[in-house]
């Protein structure tokens, strides 16, 4: 399963100084189909616009940004002015664009209608008075490694000249070649020589300018069939895939323009506990879903409270959410997988934005310093806490705990050559939350302080090799801090976790023959964790705890400090096989993990029992006799018809132990890896090119889950056990209309049941975040004149809770609850209507967007949690947000 959002905003606005396809690679801008763009549209007939004579005489130039619909036959459909200059310029540009002819785009190798953004520049080029034939495309061809000039290399422009008779030339002894009067526009260039690997590339020839290139090509390997030396197109590795464009994601009501928050409205994703932002996918706990940025794991997708994502949306190119059944190149999680791909930085000029709303302000600037070097920085700072304290009474700040968050990103990309790139990325996120509930009774005063942060420095090298292979090497180092200290009166409860993380991921992918692509790599990761904990063993709470909201923790507690190191080196291999209509992606992943700690028993405090460490290997085992073999993964898709696709996916997955669980005093140092089996199958049907229906069923089985030891007499260093199992199963439906004539929306419904069995001999219980029904309906419409409006409706079954059926007095004014059956009642269902309206103004080089995002427009008091009075004789519900309007603005340049 895979849900994909493609960030396209930057690419759509790619600037060109001459009329040319406003899309250098075309691979993202035209993503109106929910699949992989295997071929971008190509402009094959350009029509010069009539320059308004008075403007020409006055020397006035202009640019008109157009939105062009291209049909699956390549013909231009509707043309709209996105950013106009003046009525005469706009009309001339539209008239010309309507006469353009394209080669249609292809999605999943099928012609498909797309919409692109195109900038038509009206420039006055007086030098175009031709003095005869001009060389406007030349270059040199060098041997790739020794950089020596290569003579007698045939250079052909495949799409210029009569069909079947391309324009061609040959390099001289200096490796030089030149062409005269090549028509403006994109052209396919082929370099060939019997001793060399044939290479095909594409160049864009600008009107009135000369293009100079340098090609590095490689001598042919023995035994390699030249026919297969092409870039390997990717096929879908997941059983089901859905793509959502960033401009759609931004407009979803309730997300305040945060692209990554739209994930919470996708099929298979439960509603997170209010204020947590946790991703509950396919009935898995939030800590079972792994989040990767460019292949590097980060601890959290959202800031504390889930108000914002920790990565600037404009830095993100795509986000893939796989609720399960994902490929062999990733692991370390029993639940879902979130893959965030960072966006390439602008290739020319300086671009960016500034945005602000009542919660925070953010900005980004990116620039192409040189043709090889591109840089970008982004930052976000929250001020909701300070704003609130300024507009409400001072003591409200004590009762209203508003997190303070900020995040920063910096990025630099250096093009080593045409196909090789080195990128350095720095990510940082900080969260602070402090609240005090004062009381006249010192025993009732409560404070909570949370400081959490992560930092990542990522170095990534990518190379698209001439033989069609691709190589990516990503190294990273980072530091995570997660400190929480609470005081219930004099009773302290705290957990600090400081983690150094080092990772190295390398991959190699190559097409070996028609319909067969092989990928393999190594995914290494090391965590060095130092932890300190004090207070009651019951906090922080765990999934499966029988407790009640607001219950004062026990006053008995301990203290511990321990260190854990986890090192796992996971080689993996994946094949992408296409046999007619059938696509198969089998994979294997072997994930041996070194688990090392410094204390297997609690300190006796007397110095007579020095800490005894441990070190062991563990692997996520398979069932049966292949228990120690690599974990299998499989994704399959059968394209029964052009509209109908059947999918299947599955695999075995493992997750390393949580270092916080390995305290000899509070946990169990012998905890090993947990594992899971995922199986899913689905049907996808395209009702129209932009309207699709997907139905998916899944089953997950979880093994070796960690749960509390509920014995009154647990052995030493055995506060947690690892004999729990789990299961979740269900289905999901997605009916989705992609952006068409200004409208997009979807309806998604998930039916899920998730259960756990904590200890052998016990009965199954509902998972703490089990939500039987999850429904989301959302739509957005471009009204016109820069206005857009949208609405979202959500319904979810309330999560389970354990009822309180009585109580007994344990102190003056203090009571213990008597619980009923575990998770046998539910919080009432949640439903809410949100709305969003926005207005955009496009200026010459800037765009201003102002939005009003209104949550809970009906002011429904949705129950979010059960709360009892002191002696548990009266029950009530804490309700969620009242109507909350978030006003914001965004200025792009």
């Amino acid at each position, binding site marked *: 399963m895979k849900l994909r959002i493609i960030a396209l905003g930057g690419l759509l606005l790619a600037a060109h100084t001459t009329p040319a396809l406003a899309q250098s690679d075309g691979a993202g801008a035209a993503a109106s189909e929910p699949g992989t763009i295997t071929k971008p549209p190509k402009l094959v007939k350009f029509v010069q616009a009539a320059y308004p004579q008075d403007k020409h005489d006055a020397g006035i130039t202009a640019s008109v940004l157009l939105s062009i619909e291209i049909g699956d036959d390549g013909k231009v459909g509707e043309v709209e002015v996105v950013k106009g200059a003046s009525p005469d310029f706009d009309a001339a540009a539209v008239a010309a664009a309507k006469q353009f002819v394209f080669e249609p785009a292809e999605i999943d190798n099928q012609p498909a209608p797309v919409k692109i953004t195109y900038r038509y520049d009206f420039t006055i080029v007086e030098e175009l008075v031709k003095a005869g034939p001009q060389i406007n495309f030349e270059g040199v061809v060098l041997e790739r490694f020794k950089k020596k000039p290569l003579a007698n290399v045939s250079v052909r422009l495949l799409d210029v000249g009569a069909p079947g008779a391309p324009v061609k030339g040959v390099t001289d002894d200096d490796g030089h070649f030149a062409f005269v009067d090549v028509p403006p526009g994109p052209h396919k260039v082929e370099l060939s020589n019997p001793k060399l690997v044939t290479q095909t590339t594409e160049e864009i020839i600008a009107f009135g300018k000369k293009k100079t290139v340098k090609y590095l090509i490689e001598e042919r390997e023995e035994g390699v069939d030249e026919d297969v030396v092409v870039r390997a197109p990717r096929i879908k590795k997941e059983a089901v895939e859905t793509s959502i464009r960033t401009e759609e994601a931004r407009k979803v009501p309730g997300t305040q323009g945060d692209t990554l928050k739209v994930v919470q409205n996708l099929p298979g994703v439960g509603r997170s*506990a209010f204020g*947590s932002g*946790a991703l509950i996918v396919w009935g898995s706990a*939030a800590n079972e879903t792994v989040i990767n940025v460019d292949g590097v794991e980060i601890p959290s997708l959202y800031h504390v*409270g*889930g*108000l914002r994502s920790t990565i600037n949306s404009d830095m993100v190119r795509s986000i893939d959410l796989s609720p399960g059944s994902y490929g062999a190149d990733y692991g370390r999680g029993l639940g879902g997988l979130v893959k965030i791909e960072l966006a390439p930085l602008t290739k020319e000029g300086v671009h960016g934005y500034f945005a602000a709303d009542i919660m925070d302000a953010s900005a980004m600037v990116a620039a192409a310093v040189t043709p090889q070097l591109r840089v970008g920085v982004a930052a976000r700072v929250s001020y*909701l806490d300070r704003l*609130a304290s300024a507009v*409400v009474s001072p003591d*409200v700040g004590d*009762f*209203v705990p*508003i*997190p303070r968050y900020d995040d920063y990103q910096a990025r630099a990309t250096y093009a080593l050559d045409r196909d090789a790139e080195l990128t350095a990325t720095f990510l940082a996120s900080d969260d602070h*939350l402090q609240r005090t509930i004062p*009381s006249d*009774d*010192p025993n009732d005063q409560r404070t909570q302080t*949370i400081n959490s942060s992560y930092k990542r420095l990522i170095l990534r090298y990518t190379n698209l090799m001439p033989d069609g292979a691709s190589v990516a090497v990503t190294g990273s180092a980072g530091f995570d801090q997660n400190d*929480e200290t609470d005081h219930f009166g*004099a*009773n302290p409860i705290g957990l600090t976790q400081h983690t150094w993380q080092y990772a190295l991921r390398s991959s190699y992918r190559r097409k070996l023959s028609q319909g067969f692509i092989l990928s393999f790599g190594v995914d290494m990761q090391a965590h060095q964790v130092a932890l300190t904990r004090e207070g*009651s063993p*019951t906090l*922080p*709470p765990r999934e499966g705890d029988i*407790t009640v909201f607001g219950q004062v923790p*026990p006053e*008995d*507690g301990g*203290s511990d400090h321990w260190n854990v190191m986890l090192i796992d080196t996971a080689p993996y291999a994946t094949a992408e096989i296409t046999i007619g209509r059938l696509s198969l992606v089998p994979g294997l992943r072997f994930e041996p993990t070194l688990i090392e700690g410094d204390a297997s028993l609690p*300190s006796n*405090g*007397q110095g007579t029992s020095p800490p005894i460490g441990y070190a062991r290997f563990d692997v996520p085992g398979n069932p049966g006799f292949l228990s120690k073999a690599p974990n299998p993964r499989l994704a399959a898709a059968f394209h029964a018809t052009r509209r109908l696709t059947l999918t299947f996916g599955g695999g075995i997955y493992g997750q390393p132990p949580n270092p916080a669980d390995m305290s000899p005093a509070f946990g169990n140092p012998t905890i090993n890896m947990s594992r899971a089996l995922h199986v899913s199958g689905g049907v996808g049907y395209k009702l129209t090119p932009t309207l699709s229906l997907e139905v998916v069923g899944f089953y997950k089985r979880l093994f070796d889950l960690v749960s*509390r030891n509920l*014995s009154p007499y647990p*052995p*030493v260093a055995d*506060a947690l056990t690892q004999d729990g199992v789990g299961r979740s199963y269900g289905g999901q439906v997605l009916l989705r209309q992609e952006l068409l004539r200004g409208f997009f929306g979807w309806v998604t419904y998930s039916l899920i049941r998730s259960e756990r069995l904590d200890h052998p001999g016990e009965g199954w219980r509902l998972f703490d975040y089990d939500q039987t029904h999850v429904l989301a309906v959302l739509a957005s419409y471009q009204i016109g004149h820069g206005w857009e409006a949208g609405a979202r409706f959500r319904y979810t079954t309330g999560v389970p809770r354990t009822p309180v059926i009585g109580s*007994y*007095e*344990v*102190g*003056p*004014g*203090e009571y*213990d609850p*008597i*619980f009923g059956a575990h998770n046998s009642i539910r919080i009432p269902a949640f439903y809410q209507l949100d709305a969003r309206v926005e207005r955009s103004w496009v200026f010459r080089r800037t765009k201003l967007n102002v939005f009003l995002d209104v949550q809970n427009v009906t002011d429904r008091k949705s129950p*979010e*949690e059960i709360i*009892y009075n*002191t002696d548990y*004789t009266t029950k*009530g519900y*804490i*309700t969620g*947000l*009242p109507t909350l309007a978030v006003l914001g603005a965004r200025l792009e340049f």
Partner: protein
Amino acid sequence: MTNMRPLSLSILCVALVTAAVGCKPDLGAPISVVSGPQILAVRGQPAEAAPGTMVKYDLLAVDSMGTVANPVVGWAQCHIPKSPADPNAVSVACLAIPDDAGPSPTFTAPMPQGTITGLDGGTINIDACQHFGPDAPSDMPGVRPRDPDVTGGYYQPVRANWRSDAAALTGFDLERIRCDLANAPADVTAMYNMSYKLNVNPTVASITLSPDTGPAVLFATTGMVAAATVAAGQSVTLRVAWPAEAAESYLVWNLAAQALETHREALSVSWFTSAGQYAHDSSGRGEQDTTTSTDDVWTAPAAAGPVHFWVVLRDSRGGVDFAEASIDVTP
């Protein structure tokens, strides 16, 4: 798992930013208002006892008419500890054990020590320091020792079942056990054993009413009390005082810091009334605050008639005292 549920409360109240309204529902009368039979406190005397030491238990049983004299109470010492994973203070299993004694308003028994002979003739380990303290049970080697509270204390639960005419209620005293110091070097243990002083129940010295017309002592250990009246709907200040020695100093082994520290008890007062309403259900003084009294504001009910006050004074080592006072609310 993350600390999800506590966090959720924090964000829930973001609503207050715009509305400044509570997101917490109205859960009825506060616990400080006594509207029926209620156990307000169970007390052990002495407040801290080593295994084998005799302890006398009594309780404060009240209803809306006042303190219930000679309540019908069944008593039991519970020998079943709660799981360390149990968020309750006392194991729910302690509700199911049979009474050891009663019905009687008081109960006297030694702090459990060693073993006893069961009905089947076998021996049963009831040692308080082994079940609820830092010592591993002799019949279950390798068991995780209990954790102390922040004052270094371990507690033996003693159950009181009060069967009134209107209800059957259960309350517990958590009687502090004097056990050996755990997880400390031998020299520290020796120092601790030599210097540690058993906890003593604090005492309520007085309850004073301070209306605009001048203070009136409603309760005093000296017996010098005065009758007082309060007009219906009037708000008055009530003050509970205690002697300076009520807040004792004590030694505690700080496991995290690996240091023997001297702390001073904090004192809390839980306020109860049969009518009207307090500003706070409890108040008190922290460890560093040497003030020997604490106040609360009580608003008289609209209806005239007698009103009962109860205060329960508790120190941070589990010592308890309680007192009662009455006034008349006038129209």
